[in-house]
Structures are given as structure tokens and as C-alpha cells.
């Protein structure tokens, strides 16, 4: 079930370095929210705070609240492992497990979590691969290693792996940055389909992509190198790209940045 994310007063640190400062926003269920902003402004960092992956980095620390419907992800007694099962993630670089076949890669989340019925596994794998638009390309070689696929196929494999565990929210960090236009289009179509079932947050450096796939767009910026990144504005994508309320957003979108 797609869930609403409600962030308030969130800051994240790497050791003593504050990477993002006091971010508050709401992400609606069954919608696509795009994060845009210059390199180093903390988009990836913020994304990773949404499924408690930030604290995996040595020195990573988070202050503030992230409500998933009515549960605080950073509340006491919250198990990060359970959070990550609810909030899935696709990384910038495709990272299939090199020791596993295509089938095992998709099944990995279920198998290693131990919560599945054997009889359903093949079904779930097929459904996830179809969901990621990859089924037709790999159905004859499910037992071959996942690292033998092309970059774009690997990225879709990673998406299939992420949606196989049926998360409520899917976070994608520049999922198309290493892909050709055709694979990019396939993944954008996919995002359009997935948003019927998931809440999706996507980081992208591609303005057209943000305009094409997202319902809402958030613009992040940082005052200067070494300063923490801040949320400048979050609005409907149409408004951000036609008539943003902050000058910096318009400058960035129209390429007059810096």
C-alpha cells in the first residue's frame, strides 16, 4: 500500500559535516516526486534518510522526524531493517549481486528475508520482471548470472529486485544516469506504471525527465560549497517549470545557475 511521507525538521550529518539542513516536506501517496538541484546539494543524502540507509555510512547521523503515514521512522524501537522492507531503493549505478543468477537476484529480497512461500517464488519473480519491463529479454536465461546483462537491463533488474519485496515507497537515485534514451524511456514508462501502486521519489539531473515523470518537483540548493543543502521549494511540477516562486529555481532550471 502506498504511503504518505511527512518530513519535518530533518538534518543529516557526515561526522561533523552537516550535509542537509532543516528539511520539511510532504510526499503524497501514489505520486511521483522529483528531486532536482546542483551536484553536492544533498539530494542523495536526503533520499537515503528516507529509508534509514544514511546511518549505514560511517559517521552518518540524522536529526528530525520522518513520518510514514503515522509512524516515525526515527522513533525509538523502530527497526531499520523493517523500515527498509517498507521503503525500497534503486541506486544510481546498477548493482546486481554478482554471485547470483537473474532469478536469484530478483528473489534475493524475499529469500534472504525468509518471508515467502516456495510455490509463489517463481510467480513473484515473473511478476516483478514483467513489472520492470525486463521479462521478455531474460525469460530464457533466468539461470544466467545477472552481471551478464547490459547496463540498462541490469538497472531494470535492480528495479525488479526492489519491487519484488512489495515496498510501500520506492526511492530512486538517478536511476537513468547511465542509460541510453531507449532504456531511459522504458524506465520512465515503468515509473508511470509503478506510481499506481507505490509512492515514488526520484532524484534526477535531467530537467526533461523531471518534467515528464513527476507530479511534484522539489528543488534543493546550497548557499556555497561546504554549506549544508536546503530545500528551496516544492511545488507541482508544472508550476516549478513554468512559474516557480523562487528566483533561484528559475535560474537553475533555465540554466542560468552560478
Amino acid at each position: 500500500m502506498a504511503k504518505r511521507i511527512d518530513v519535518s525538521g530533518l538534518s543529516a550529518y557526515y561526522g561533523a559535516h552537516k550535509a542537509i539542513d532543516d528539511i520539511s516536506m510532504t510526499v503524497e501517496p501514489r505520486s511521483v516526486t522529483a528531486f532536482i538541484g546542483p551536484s553536492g546539494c544533498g539530494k542523495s543524502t536526503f533520499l537515503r534518510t528516507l529509508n534509514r540507509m544514511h546511518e549505514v555510512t560511517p559517521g552518518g547521523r540524522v536529526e528530525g522526524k520522518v513520518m510514514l503515514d503515522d509512524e516515525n521512522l526515527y522513533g525509538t524501537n523502530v527497526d531499520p531493517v523493517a523500515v527498509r522492507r517498507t521503503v525500497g531503493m534503486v541506486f544510481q549505478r546498477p548493482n546486481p549481486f554478482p554471485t547470483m543468477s537473474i532469478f536469484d537476484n530478483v528473489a534475493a529480497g524475499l529469500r534472504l528475508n525468509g518471508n515467502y512461500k516456495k510455490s509463489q517464488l517463481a510467480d513473484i519473480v515473473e511478476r516483478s520482471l514483467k513489472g520492470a519491463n525486463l521479462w521478455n529479454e531474460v525469460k530464457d536465461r533466468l539461470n544466467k548470472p545477472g552481471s551478464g546483462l547490459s547496463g540498462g537491463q541490469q538497472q531494470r533488474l535492480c528495479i525488479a529486485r526492489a519491487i519484488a519485496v512489495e515496498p510501500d515507497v520506492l526511492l530512486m537515485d538517478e536511476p537513468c544516469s547511465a542509460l541510453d534514451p531507449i532504456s531511459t524511456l522504458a524506465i520512465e514508462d515503468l515509473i508511470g506504471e509503478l506510481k499506481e501502486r507505490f509512492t515514488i521519489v526520484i532524484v534526477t539531473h535531467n530537467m526533461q525527465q523531471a518534467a515528464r515523470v513527476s507530479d511534484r518537483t522539489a528543488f534543493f540548493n546550497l548557499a556555497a560549497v561546504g554549506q549544508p543543502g536546503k530545500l528551496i521549494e516544492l511545488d507541482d511540477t508544472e508550476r516549478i517549470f513554468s512559474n516557480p516562486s523562487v528566483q533561484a529555481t528559475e535560474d537553475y532550471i533555465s540554466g542560468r545557475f552560478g
Partner: protein
Amino acid sequence: MSHAIQERPVSAAPRRGSLSHARLPRWSPAAIAVGSIAGGIGTGLAAGWHSKVQWGLTAALLFVLVTFAVTTKVEGSRQAKDRVATSLVWVCFVLAVVPLLSLAWVTISKGLDVLDGYFLTHSMNGVLDAEAGGGVYHALLGTIEQVGIATLIAAPIGLLTAVYLVEYGNGSRLAKAVTFFVDVMTGIPSIVAGLFVLATWNLILGFGPSGFAGAMALAILMMPVVVRSTEEMLKLVPNELREASLALGIPKWRTILKVVLPTAIGGITTGVMLAVARITGETAPVLLLVFGTKLINPNPFEGAQSSLPLYVYEQYAVGTDAAVARAWAAALVLIAFVMILNLVARGIARWKAPKTGR
């Protein structure tokens, strides 16, 4: 002569703005090598040197110098540096391989004298040291058992220590201390490990000599090697794989067990095998703790055993022709044993290693 040299006078320096220049023909390094070897032999004969080592070193020196001279003349100084570096690599390679091959050759040629089925399946029971006959079975059995037990103790402990250091330690004070002591342990002489077990297990706790006592000393020697190599292998596993797994909601311990370790298993196996190879040849702790016997003792927990290196040592010390022949044969068995273990481990590693390709 090749085209390049025909097209252009040999002495022509590379022209400015031209990407091509005079090249030595492909076979020239081989020709220079043959010439240098001939030169080395010639010099040796002429000067009447007895030591073949001198002949070889002269040839090696000639090879590097002639390469340098010829290339500078034909190809210019940058290429000369390149070729000299290459020829040095070759010389070093040969210098490294010659002792290895001669060792293998001597061991095989001398070891095959008495190595046969009878030798492998019989002990020294009732055979006088000075006379021919007897075999190595009891020593082989002892080595297999002692090394097996040592590996069973050291491999899991070493592996888990490395997992702790890489996955959980994060530069904490405990991790730093462990790393330090592992480094110190790497330098422990084997006799000291043997004396340590002798002092605690045999003298304080009062146990007699046994294969197990030897295995404990061997485990002490093996552990730091396993920790070190496993640690390096685990560090090579990309962090992205760990993150991919954690982001699927897979707990950390399962991530380590199912993603990190399988990815590194090839290197880890190699590391463990190197450690096994190291302890298989240890003599000193075995001498102290396992004591040596002529009889077959299949029980590693009770009574003296033998082991291959100890057997070699004992037979060589006897000094008669028959005993020395047995020593060579046992040395060959020892080398073959380590080699077979290595091949098996490589097979396992290749079978388990990350698969690529379609």
C-alpha cells in the same frame, strides 16, 4: 630485416611531427637473449669460471646491456628505457623461476627412487632406520590429521575475526587492538608457538604429546594469515553490494553471509590455502608437541604421531643412503600434498566465484 628498417635508415632519429619511427623487429629480444646466453657461456669458458651462477649472471647482465645499446641506437632513448624495463622484468622472472624449477626437478628425480604404492601405504614399523624399506603412511596420516584439525580451529576463528574487523570494527579501539595483535602474531616464530603450547598444554595441564597439541600450535601460526588475507578480500567487496542488500531490508548478518562472503569466497579460499600450505611444512612445533613415532597412530588426541616434515627431518638425520632416499620421497609427497590441496581449493573457488558472461 623488417619493413620499418628497410624503409628508413637505421640511424634515423624519429622525425618531428611523425608518429612512426624505426622499430626493432619482433624477434630481436629473443635474438639478443640467445646472443647473451652464448656470450655468457663463452665468457665463462674463456675465463674458466666453475660456477654456473657466474655464467648465468653474466648472460643476464649482457642481455640488459645489449638491449639498451641496440635500442638506443635504433629506436631512441625513450624506447630504450621501455625495453630495458621489460628486459629487467624478464631477467627477474627467470631468476625467480630457475630455483623453483631446479627445486622441483631435484625433488622429483631423487624422490621417485623409492616412492611407490608400498611406500605410501606402510609405516616404519619394524624397519631399522639404516636399512631400506618402510614407508610414509603414518607421517602422511599424521600431517592430514594435524593440518585438518589446525584448519578446523584457525579458519573459522580467522574468518570471523576478519568479518568483525571489516564489517563491524569500523576503526574502533578494539578493532585497532585486534589488528595490532594479528600483526604481531604474524611474526611469531613457529618454535615459539610450539613452546607456548608445550608450556601450557603439556607442562601446566599435564597432557602428553599428541597430534592435537601440534595442531593447536599450527592453528596459532595459521590464524593471523587467514585473518589478514580474508580481511583484504572482504575490503575488496564493493560497498554498493552491501547497500543493495541492506536496502532490500535484509539484516546485516544475512547480508554478510549471503552477499559479502560469497562474493569474496574465491580470494578467501586462496588465503586459507596459503595458510594451510604454510603450516603443512612446519617442523619445529611438531617436533616438540607431536614427538614423532614409527608406528601408525590414527588417534590425534592420544599418543605421539608423526608428520611429513618431521619424517623428512628424522630420515635425513639418520644419513644412510636408504634413509636419505626416504627423506626425498617424503619431501615429494609433502609437495604433492600441498599441490593437490591447492588445486582442489582453486577448483572450489572457481566453482563458487562470481560468474560473469552470459
